[in-house]
């Protein structure tokens, strides 16, 4: 499959579209004319892009939980509870993983059981199986924007039905889906599926319906931010080429203030720069921050601490949307109440902090982090563009093969997975193994010197064991494993 970063022709899109809609019977229920009318009739602030842009104008940080239940009534109750009790300003429809993998028949059977028994059977909302009207039943019950949520290689039909069903955005992306959700699906076929989604969103935009596309790049796992930012900017450029106009930048925060804030800044700066370089000057960006996906502490009290901590980070980073793990995270799919408690905790912090305008973004430590992050991201992206002779999509395919784009703990067997992260003695993520990243000796020296400091503190070499322990330290209550249980 040979693809490029060119805008799809209308013909090509609608030809593809026929096949997509026929993947499952509910596909026939989608009418774009009807969908546009439905969205035009919607309160403008129920549209995700409008609301996120308004938050940006007003300097507000809003909240968005990621949740989903299987049946319509369960999902509606969940989202309404979030809106009314947790006081969040956005909600999402978490797509269940059977639907994400297009196992629509199995998902339908399980949904049937859930409907029959009243007991949950799926780990999210089966968007496709519920059809357009099923989706609208949920959306109509709410006053706030609802996003689709969930990376996966093929969410085309989910988007057809989800967007026509009243969702006004999506969080995911081709690269995160590739790195973290597939075993051997070639990246080009995933990108192709996302070009479809992006083109569909572009089509909505052209018909006066803003659609918010939240890129996600790559899941962190003690990852120096450049290896998350670079794939995210690639996702932005792919989306922009297909006509997406409202992009949200997913800032994966890992708990290190200077590094996380630097990421939030660098990500915005470079996204603007690369968008403009390719002429996408009318694409608007907003930001979203969410805590890392490493294992969470089991004790609620500690998780509350983490949730609040990340809320402080998000507000100080001046992001528009904050996501959050929940107090139930380590145990099971969050209960409605558990999620509400978590967001009420985060909300408390936001409501304390956001009007203070306490600016820490020009902190010297933030600047140091941003300095290296920026040249790292540029080094990666420029190499990708070079490989693709200026085409970011071609370049991405080749860069992955060569490990110029790489991730630790990837689920894909098509990934080098040579790159590895480890923490320095302040808890920032550094490169333990640079793999084939196209970095100069300056960058490498910076990372190695930071690791050397940690080794000095540890009194021994950092090794693979350290790498493993760094991954789960936070779940044991500390940013660094060597401090677990230590005190004066």
């Amino acid at each position, binding site marked *: 499959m040979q693809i490029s970063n060119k805008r799809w022709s209308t013909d090509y899109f609608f030809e593809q579209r026929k096949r997509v809609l026929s993947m499952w019977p509910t596909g026939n229920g989608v009418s774009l004319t009807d969908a546009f009318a439905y969205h035009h009739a919607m309160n403008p602030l129920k549209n995700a892009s409008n609301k996120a842009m308004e938050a940006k104008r007003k300097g507000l940080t809003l909240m968005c939980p990621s949740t989903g239940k299987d049946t319509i009534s369960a999902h509606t109750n969940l989202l309404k509870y979030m809106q009314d009790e947790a006081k969040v300003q956005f909600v999402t429809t978490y797509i269940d993983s059977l639907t994400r993998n297009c*196992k629509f028949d*199995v998902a339908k059977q399980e949904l049937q059981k859930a409907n029959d028994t009243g007991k949950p059977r799926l*780990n999210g909302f089966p968007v496709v199986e519920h059809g357009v009207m099923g989706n609208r039943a949920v959306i109509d019950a709410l006053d706030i924007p609802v996003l689709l949520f969930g990376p996966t290689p093929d969410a085309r039909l989910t988007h057809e039905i989800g967007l026509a069903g009243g969702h006004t955005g999506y969080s995911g992306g081709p690269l995160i889906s590739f790195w973290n959700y597939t*075993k051997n699906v070639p990246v080009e076929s995933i990108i192709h599926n996302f070009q479809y989604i992006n083109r569909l969103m572009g089509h909505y935009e052209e018909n006066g319906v803003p659609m918010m596309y939240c890129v996600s790049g790559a899941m962190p796992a003690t990852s120096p931010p450049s290896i998350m930012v670079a794939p995210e900017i690639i996702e932005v450029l792919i989306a922009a080429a297909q006509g997406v106009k409202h992009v949200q930048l997913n800032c994966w925060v890992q708990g290190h203030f200077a590094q996380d804030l630097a990421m939030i800044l660098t990500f915005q700066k470079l996204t603007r720069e690369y968008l403009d370089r390719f002429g996408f000057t009318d694409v608007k960006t907003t930001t979203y921050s969410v805590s890392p996906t490493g294992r969470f502490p089991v004790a609620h009290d500690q998780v509350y601490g983490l949730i609040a901590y990340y809320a402080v980070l998000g507000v100080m980073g001046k992001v528009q949307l904050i996501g959050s793990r929940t107090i139930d995270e380590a145990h*099971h799919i969050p209960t409605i109440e558990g999620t509400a408690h978590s967001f009420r905790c985060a909300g408390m912090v936001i409501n304390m902090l956001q009007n203070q305008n306490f600016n820490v973004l020009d902190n010297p430590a933030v600047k140091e982090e941003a300095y290296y992050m920026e040249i790292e991201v540029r080094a990666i992206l420029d190499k990708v563009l070079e490989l693709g002779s200026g085409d970011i999509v071609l370049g991405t395919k080749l860069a992955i093969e060569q490990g110029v784009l790489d991730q630790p*703990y990837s689920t894909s067997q098509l990934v080098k997975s040579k790159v590895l992260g480890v923490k320095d003695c302040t808890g920032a993520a550094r490169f333990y193994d640079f793999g084939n990243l196209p970095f100069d000796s300056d960058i490498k020296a910076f990372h190695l010197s930071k690791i050397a400091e940690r080794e000095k503190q540890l009194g021994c070499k950092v090794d693979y064991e350290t790498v493993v322990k760094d991954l789960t330290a936070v779940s044991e209550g500390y940013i660094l494993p060597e401090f677990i249980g230590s005190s004066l």
Partner: protein
Amino acid sequence: MQRSITDFTLITGVIGEDVHVTGIRIMEHALRTEGFNVFSLGIHNTSDEFVKAALEHKADAILVSSLCGHAEILVRDLRSKCTDAGIGNIHLCLGGQLVIHEEPWSTTENRFLSMGFDRVHRPFILPNEAISALKVDLNITQDSVVGQFKSQL
């Protein structure tokens, strides 16, 4: 004849549409350090793929990881497939986060034991603990221990 740890072969992997790979990667690392032969199937494996790999590598055990909450749907036919393939006695071990609702651990454990697993681990089981249990299950005595501890002697 006493078999040493290096004589044991394990198949590891994540079953079904589940992508949670980090936990089993860590287990694999620990198992290899301990001395086991580990064949890793990564994510997205069917029961058939586990059985095929076990046959191919003459494995002593299959270690299945599942975190997405659908374990009950995904693992039910593993034992019967093993039996059909002529390796009905192979040790089957399950770990991860198995159910999406809250229930007493014994309920969860019994559910999967009765599906034919020999050992079902609680969530968050640490590598050392899981390995100790595996050694008991596979009848590996302390004397045959190699790997990190032995090498420290």
